C-alpha cells in the first residue's frame, strides 16, 4: 500500500483509458466471459467494468441468467458476459449449463475467473475445470481485503506460474485492482500474454487413446465445434446432458445465441 504513489505513474493506472459503455455493445473487438463461484463478487467486478449497476447481493445465486455489458479500453471495445456463479462445470443444474455452454461454445476471447481469496482451495476446483476447456483466462483474486483481515497470505506469483494464467489480486467492492485486471485482460485478448493453462496430468495412455478415437468421430459429425477433447471426456464419463445433446444433434447447433439471456 505504501508505494501506491509510484503506481500512479504506471500506464496501468491511466483511468482515462477506460470508457464504460453500459449496454452499448455494437462492434465489439473482444468478448469477455466472467465466471466464478457464487458470492465471490462477480457482479461487482462486472459493474466496475461496465459502469452498469446490476443488482448485487450477498447471497449465492443472485445472477440467475447471464447479463451483458460493454466497455472500451485503449480504443478496443469489449463485451462482458456475466455468467451465473457455479461451484463446478461437472454436474448439471441450469446455472452450470449456462456457464459451461458459454465458455465451451461461446468461445469468449478471455474468460475472467473471479475467485474468493479467503476460500482459494475450493475456488480452485472451478478454476481448474475452466482451464480444462479454455486456453485464455485471467484469474481475478477478489476479496483480498477480507483475506488480509483474516491473516491469509497468497503468493500470487507462484499461483500464476502454477495455473499458467495472469493472477490479479483485487478488492472489487473498493474498486482496487480493477485497472490491473483490465491490463491483464488486454494482454491476454491481444495475444501478448500467451497462457499455458494448467492441465490435469493424471490421464492414462488408455484414456488418451479413447479420447482421440472419440474426437475423430465427433469431428466428422460436428465439424468446427471447439473443445472436442472435453466433449469426448464428458461422453466417456457418461454425462447425460452431453449424451442427449449428441443424440438429438443439438450439440451441432449450440451457439451463444441459444443460451438464454434475459432482463
Amino acid at each position, binding site marked *: 500500500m505504501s508505494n501506491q504513489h509510484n503506481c500512479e505513474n504506471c500506464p496501468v493506472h491511466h483511468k482515462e483509458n477506460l470508457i464504460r459503455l453500459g449496454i452499448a455493445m455494437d462492434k465489439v473487438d473482444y468478448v469477455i466471459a466472467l465466471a466464478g463461484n*457464487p*458470492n465471490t463478487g462477480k457482479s461487482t467486478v462486472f459493474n466496475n467494468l461496465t459502469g452498469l*449497476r446490476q*443488482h448485487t*447481493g*450477498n*447471497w*449465492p*445465486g*443472485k445472477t*440467475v*441468467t447471464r447479463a451483458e455489458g460493454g466497455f472500451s479500453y485503449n480504443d478496443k471495445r469489449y463485451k462482458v458476459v456475466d455468467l451465473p456463479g457455479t*461451484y463446478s462445470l*461437472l454436474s448439471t*443444474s441450469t*446455472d452450470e449449463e449456462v456457464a459451461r455452454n458459454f465458455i465451451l461454445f461461446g468461445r469468449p476471447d478471455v474468460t475472467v475467473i473471479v475467485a474468493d481469496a*479467503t476460500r*482459494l*482451495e*475450493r475456488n*480452485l*476446483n472451478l478454476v*481448474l*475445470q475452466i482451464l480444462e476447456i479454455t486456453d485464455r483466462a485471467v484469474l481475478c483474486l477478489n476479496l483480498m481485503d*477480507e483475506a488480509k483481515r*483474516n*491473516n*491469509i*497470505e*497468497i*503468493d*500470487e506469483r*507462484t*499461483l500464476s506460474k*502454477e*495455473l499458467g494464467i495472469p493472477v490479479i489480486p483485487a478488492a472489487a*467492492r473498493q474498486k482496487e485492482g480493477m485497472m490491473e485486471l483490465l491490463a491483464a485482460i488486454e494482454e491476454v485478448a491481444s495475444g501478448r500474454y500467451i497462457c499455458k493453462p*494448467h492441465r*490435469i496430468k*493424471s490421464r492414462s495412455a*488408455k*484414456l488418451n487413446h*479413447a479420447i482421440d*478415437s*472419440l474426437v475423430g*468421430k465427433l469431428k*466428422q*459429425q460436428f465439424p468446427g465445434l471447439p473443445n472436442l477433447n472435453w466433449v*469426448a*471426456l464428458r*461422453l*466417456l*464419463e*457418461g454425462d447425460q446432458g452431453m*449424451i442427449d445433446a*449428441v*443424440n*438429438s*444433434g443439438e450439440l*451441432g447447433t449450440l451457439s451463444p445465441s441459444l443460451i438464454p439471456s434475459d432482463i
Partner: protein
Amino acid sequence: MENKEKVSGEEILSLANTLRWDLGMNLHDTVTESIYEGASKIAKKTVRVKDEKSSVNWDLKIDKVVTSKWLGFPIMFFLLALVFWITVAAANIPSGWIASLLIDTLHPILKNGAAAIGFPWWLSGVLIDGAYLSVAWVVSVMLPPMAIFFPMFTLLEDFGYLPRVAFNMDSLFRKAGAHGKQALTMSMGFGCNAAGVVATRVIDSPRERLIAIITNNFSLCNGRWPTQILIATIFIGGLVSSRWAGIVSAGAVVGVAVLGIFFSLVVSWALSRSVLKGEASAFSLELPPYRPPRILQTLYTSLIDRTIFVLWRAVVFALPAGILIWLVANIHIGQLSLAEWFINWSDPFAMLFGLNGVILLAYIIAIPANEIVIPTVLMLTVISSGIAGVGAGDGVMFELDSIADTERVLRAGGWTLLTGINLMLFSLLHNPCSTTIYTIYKETKSVKWTMISTFLPIVMGFAICFFTTQVWRLLVK
C-alpha cells in the same frame, strides 16, 4: 440428412459406451478426484495463514446466535417486524407530502385548467378525476413505503442476513415439499409480491419455483399493511381501552401476517402432494461471510431496480383502472349508477361471507394496486349509503384525515366488527394485484398457472370468510 445425422450420433454414443466399459465405470470419480487433488496441491503451495488462533471468528459467533434453535426464529421475527414498523411509521410523512402536492394542489389546478380551455365535464372527469387521480394515489401511497422498505431489506441482504433466514426456514419448507430458498422469496413478498415472484428465479427446479410463485401472494405485501392497520385500529383496537388499543391492533395485524406464512406452508404442502408432486430438491446453501453493507450503492440499486420497476408497472395498470372507477360511478342506468347497481345486486351474496357489495366491487375495480382499495371502499360507501357532506364527488377517490371520520363512514355503510375481521382476512386471501398477475404470467409463460395463482387465493378467501361468518353467527347470536 436428418436420418444420416441420427445414425452418426448413435455411432458416436455406442463407441463412447464401448470405450467406457474398457476404461472402467469410475472414470467420473477419477476425473473429479484429480481436479480436487490439483486444487489442494496448488492451494498448499500458495496460501499461508498467519497465527490462525488469534483472529476471532466473528462470522461463526454471529451465526451461532442468529441460526440457533431457540433464538433464530425470535430474532428473525423481531428484525422483520422492525423493518415493517419503520416502513409503516416513516412512510406516512412523505406520503402526505406527495399527496398534498399531487392531489390537493395539482389536481384542482388541472381541473380549473381543463375548465378554462373548455373541456366537457365528462372528459375532464375521465382524464383528471379518473386516470390522473388514481395514478396520483398510487404514487403517493406506494412510493414512500417501497422507497423505505426495499433499501432496508436490501441492506439486510447485503450484510448477509437473508441466507440465514433461508437456513432457519429451510426445514419448514422442506417438510412442506418446497425449496428452502422459498423463505427468501416469501420475505421479499412482504415488500411486494411482484418483486417476490421475480425473485423466485433463484430457485432452480421448475416445480419448486411454481410453488414459490403460487404461494407468494400469501405474503402480506406493502399495499395491504396499511389496510390491515387501519381496519385493525378501528374495529379491533376499538374493543379495548385506548391504552391497549395500539398493541392489540398491532398484534392482530402480525397475527394476519403469520396466518399468511401458515397458509404459504400449507398450500405448498398441498401442491407438492397433488398437482406439483415431487420431492424437495437438496441444495447447498453456503452461508456467506458477513460484510459491511455499502449504504449508498444499496440505496441506489434498490431504488432503481426494485422501487421504480414496481412503481412503473403499478402506474401502467392504475391509469385504465382510474378511468374504469370513474365510469362505473358516473354512468347511470335509470336512477342508479353502474356501481350502485352492482353493489345492490351483490350485497345479499356478499353478506353470506360477512362482507358487502362495496367491498366486492372495490376489490374488482381496485385490482391494479391493493393500496387503492380503502380509498375506493370509502368512495363507494359514500355513494351507496348517501351520506351527505363527505367525499369529493362521484367517482373521485378520497381518504379521510382522521380515523374517526373513516369509522363514521364505514359504520354508516353498515360495517360491524365481523365485517372488519372478514375484510382483514379477505385482504390476505384474494387475488394478487394486476401487476403481480402480469409478472406471474411473464415468469411462468403459462395461462394455466397464472389462473391458478389468481383464483386459488380468492376461493380460499371466500371459504375462510364464510366459515368465520357462520361460526360468528352461531356463537354471537
